[in-house]
């Protein structure tokens, strides 16, 4: 195992280095007194001070989180329902059609989604702003949740459900005691993917936002016109450290509390 283990560790380390390289690059230059993402001139905390002085920016960050959390949670619920629905369908054709429709939003370029949602919202008469952005984020996150949950459902053997039924479990009990625990890893994966989509989205939000409501990616995009200000770097670094602390903290607390259950699926 020795050499092999080393090589595989090396491989993982390389992957992680590459994944985090641009982020550390951003963080490094957030301390640059030179004011640009090249030519490091000297150390400064100026950009961090600027972030905390900018209330509008803070509001936008909070908006971004609210949208991401709410849309991820709601779309996860919707997506799980969708996956259950698709899983229940027996006819192959119907299933395939549903799946294809499901994936339309994943594959459509953001610009189209944005433009068509914009038209849609104006037809329905929804004011552009918080509601329209939240709705769109829910809308485009649902399919990815379905895709994450469905394989788990399909791998679950039907005998499991039959057994539960035979033992006299009600439909609700089957769902909450058998099905949901089984697909929990898929649900988590879906939730995190939805969160990722929401935090990452620029184009759709750009179209459907209005009336003073803005999210971080839209704000960054519009600030990019003068070359990205390093205060955006500073902000991203802070957010990044915050999320990483959160994720690690959550993971270990979770592990201590519920040792065998949940995340750790049966071996």
């Amino acid at each position, binding site marked *: 195992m020795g050499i092999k283990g080393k090589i595989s560790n090396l491989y993982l380390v390389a992957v992680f280095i590459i994944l985090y390289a641009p982020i550390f690059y951003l963080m490094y230059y957030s301390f640059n007194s030179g004011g*640009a*993402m*090249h*030519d490091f001139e000297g150390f400064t905390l100026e950009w961090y001070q600027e972030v905390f002085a900018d*209330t*509008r920016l*803070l*509001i936008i960050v*909070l*908006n971004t*989180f*609210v949208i991401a*959390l*709410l849309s*991820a*949670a709601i779309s*996860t*619920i919707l997506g799980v329902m969708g996956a259950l629905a698709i899983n229940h369908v027996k006819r192959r054709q119907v299933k395939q059609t549903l799946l294809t429709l499901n994936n339309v939003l994943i594959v459509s370029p953001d610009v189209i989604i944005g*433009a068509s949602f*914009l*038209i849609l*919202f*104006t037809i329905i008469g*929804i*004011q*552009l702003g918080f509601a*329209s952005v939240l709705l769109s984020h829910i809308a485009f996150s649902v399919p990815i949740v379905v895709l994450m949950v469905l394989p788990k459902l399909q791998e679950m053997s039907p005998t499991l459900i039959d057994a539960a039924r035979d033992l006299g479990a009600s439909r609700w009990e089957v769902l*909450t*005691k058998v099905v*949901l*625990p089984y697909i*929990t890893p898929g*649900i*988590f994966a879906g*939730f995190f993917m939805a969160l990722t989509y929401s935090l990452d989205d620029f184009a759709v939000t*750009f*179209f459907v936002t*209005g*009336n*003073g409501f*803005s999210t971080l990616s839209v704000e960054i*995009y*519009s*600030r*990019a*016109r*003068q*070359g990205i200000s390093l205060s955006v770097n500073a902000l991203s670094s802070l957010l990044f450290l915050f999320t990483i602390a959160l994720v690690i903290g959550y993971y270990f607390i*979770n592990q201590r509390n*519920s040792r065998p*259950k*949940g*995340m750790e699926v049966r071996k």
Partner: protein
Amino acid sequence: MKQLVRMFTAVFLVAFVLIYVTFQLNSTEGYSSGNTLSIYNWGDYIDPDLLKQFEQESGIKVIYQTFDSNEAMMTKIAQGGTTFDVAVPSEYAISKMKEENLLLPIDHSKLSNLKYINPRFLNLSFDKENQYSVPYFWGTVGIVYNPKLLGGKEITSWNDLWDGDLRNQILLVDGAREVIGMGLNSLHYSLNDTDEAHLQEAKNKLNALTPNVKAIVGDEIKMLLAGEEAAVGVVWSGDASEIMSENDELDYVIPEEGSNLWFDNMVIPKTAKNIEGAHEFINFMLDPEHAAQNAEYVGYSTPNEKALEYLPEEIAGDKRFYPDPSVTDKLEVYDNLGKRMLAHYNELFLEFKMYKN
């Protein structure tokens, strides 16, 4: 299951706490007071201090939103669903918006500072008598180049770009009118030419430029040129002055064959709610001192004659950014060529981008 319930409860709880905090922040900042003015401008196209000053003087809270292209802005305004009280489109967008009835007329009697605008920037073809628009900034399209990287070589014309020594050295701005216009200008045709033979000739000429073109990029062109990633760039004058303030090796030239003269203007979209406030804001920006402060911050050229007196001589006297009328007379403003022709320009530009030699 417990784990799921716990997580979802936590998520919703956190979200509602955040909503509450945002709400509190919004109201302490005055965004929900009702007396607001919504401004729709290009990103980073105003000195934020001026917005603060305006808020203090007028008691109106400004909601500042940005767009990155005239087209995106027009789509938003045409669709409704938003209230924008002031927007800052370019001249060709104004004639389009006029056609589509997206603008409200401007009441000149409320603009006491309009008199400071140099008359040569008023009453232009895209908006006769400035019924709907007031000039905000103006500028040209030209070439930024780095003599150090070019071994002291000087560039004065579009045709200099076809020089074989510039292989892989040119960055172009991602705009169909600008690039096709450059091709047309280099052949001494008009920027607004619609003759198919001329356009094809221009495209073929541009194809020949491909080996010299390193990339066709957007706003990041400023960062790339300032970082000496390439020696030559075709850019708007305002961008040029920003790049040059970051890297003083660089120089800017308005090509001798002619080029584009452009204007960004303040307008009141039909979606406006606070029309009174919009006029107040426009007049505030027309004030010479404010205009000068804004021009110094943004780096673009102000059309405000009186503001030039407040600007340092090295800015106001810089002929590259405040060219004499004798130079600007040779330049052309983009005409509204109509949707079909514009689409054709874009098609040609797309073909140029896809051309592989």
